[in-house]
């Protein structure tokens, strides 16, 4: 019976307006919505991917970026297998405050949590305020994976999520993650169990139609 697993939480985290929700929408629905409501609380998205022949469900938690909602975000870090720390390449301030977000993430999560640094809005080259090299340097310094993406053009969006998942998967293979400890945000089981038990949000790459709420 082939194994399947879900990474219970992959976090999207950082300043408001950097495009976290758009990245999620692009990844789960393959569409871009230029105007997105401010996220309050947590919004969920999910998608099935395949790594190494195994079906893996990525459950993504899109968190609020606004300072006033941040205390809420912190309490949800626990149990996250990975996080995408996003900044906006056209807004220097979102890059300058990455350390705070990173500390926040590390402080409130599993120390093994995979963190990917994302410089979003790479389509807006003319308005760029943060060089790619700066992002790379920051990632190198803090042991993060780095990628520039564009939720608008879908450039690297798929790769960002899948590479994060791969990294988590590799850590599982290396035994870094204790898969018996659900606090790591990983659950492994028979394929049918994983897909059925997680029927909520199991869009399998496409959102269920209807799109209410």
């Amino acid at each position: 019976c082939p194994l399947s697993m879900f990474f219970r939480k992959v976090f999207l985290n950082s300043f408001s307006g950097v495009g976290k929700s758009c990245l999620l929408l692009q990844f789960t629905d393959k569409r871009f919505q230029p105007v997105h409501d401010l996220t309050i609380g947590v919004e969920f998205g999910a998608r099935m991917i395949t790594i190494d022949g195994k079906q893996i469900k990525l459950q993504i938690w899109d968190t609020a970026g606004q300072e006033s909602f941040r205390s809420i975000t912190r309490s949800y870090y626990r149990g996250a297998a990975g996080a995408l720390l996003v900044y906006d390449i056209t807004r220097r301030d979102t890059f300058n405050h990455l350390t705070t977000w990173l500390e926040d993430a590390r402080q409130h999560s599993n120390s093994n949590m995979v963190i990917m640094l994302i410089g979003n809005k790479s389509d807006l080259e003319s308005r760029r305020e943060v060089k790619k090299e700066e992002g790379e340097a920051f990632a190198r310094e803090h042991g993060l994976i780095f990628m520039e993406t564009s939720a608008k053009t879908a450039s690297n969006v798929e790769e960002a999520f899948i590479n994060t998942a791969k990294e988590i998967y590799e850590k599982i293979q290396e035994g870094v993650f204790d898969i018996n400890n659900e606090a790591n945000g990983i659950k492994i089981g028979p394929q049918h169990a994983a897909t059925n038990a997680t029927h909520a949000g199991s869009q399998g790459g496409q959102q269920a139609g209807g799109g209410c709420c």
Partner: protein
Amino acid sequence: MLSSVPHRKPWWKSKKTVKVTRSYPTFPPLNAWEECRGLLPVDGELNPGVGFGVEDGLLCQVVHSPEFNLFPNSVVFESNFVQVRRGRNWIDIYKASNTMALGVTSSVPCLPLPNILLMASVKWYQGQSQTWNKPSTIPNIILKRILPLKFVELQVCDHLQRILRLRTVTEKIYYLKLHPDHPEIVFHFWTRLVQILQKGLSITTKDPRILFTHCLVPKNCCSPSGDSQVSYKNLPASQPSDSLIQLMAKGEREALSQIFADLHQKNQFSSQSSKKTETNKDTSEKETPCEDCIPCTRDLSWRDSFTFGEWERENPSGLQPLSLLSTLAACTGPQLAPPIGGFDP
């Protein structure tokens, strides 16, 4: 399949109880119980909340499932709604097979009021009867978001049509019509919840020895033997709290029955918010039909009215005023003191 819902233990079991009588805000008389007695889908169900599908329901099972494992020790009060928009009449936004599950719960079970709103989209199979309470086939439920209730305003919009108006702090407005499959009493529960969230209650204590006289879903509307003939006929409607005293039973899932507010703060909130809401009402209701899904950012001043009490903090284990600490101390048992942010195992 839906997975295990963590077993909740009755946390005050075998403890000495003290009945406290206080004055309460007036709630609509529960005359609807008269009508619903015959509707109770009992079949051996001890908890009428479960019988009505408003507790331990489909949304609760999703939220408590291993995938989310959110608020595992908290009760979820939930129902199935149809998203509508204003027209000459109320118009369904989505096709009939798509509904929305709405629920409230507490991030920490010992909070006196629910502080989390849950929203999920529900997709029913073609031709399937949309029975929320134990449907023949479980529909596809996708948890969409969780919102702190302090950033949400819930109002009863149309009693007759059983429509709630949900407005978020970001001015996203939803009109939600209780699914026709739900009996009338379920809307009364929601009405009651709306009132409690707005006005609060007069108790903040969580001393488990105290039998509270408030309960969203009265527990003994039917006896464990299945006898649902408890009569509310003779109870004076002007004293709903008295009738609730009689309705109160020693049920297990009492988190939602423990809906008590920090009145000082809540009253401040409700008076401010109701005034501002009134002011906004005329204009907002003249909005385009897209109002239900498109945020309006004209007047965000009302956001300031989202003040909230100490009890609604996400993490009540921080420093608390002495008055609250004393009540917390009364309930700090092993089951009631989860770790910080402790809704994960």
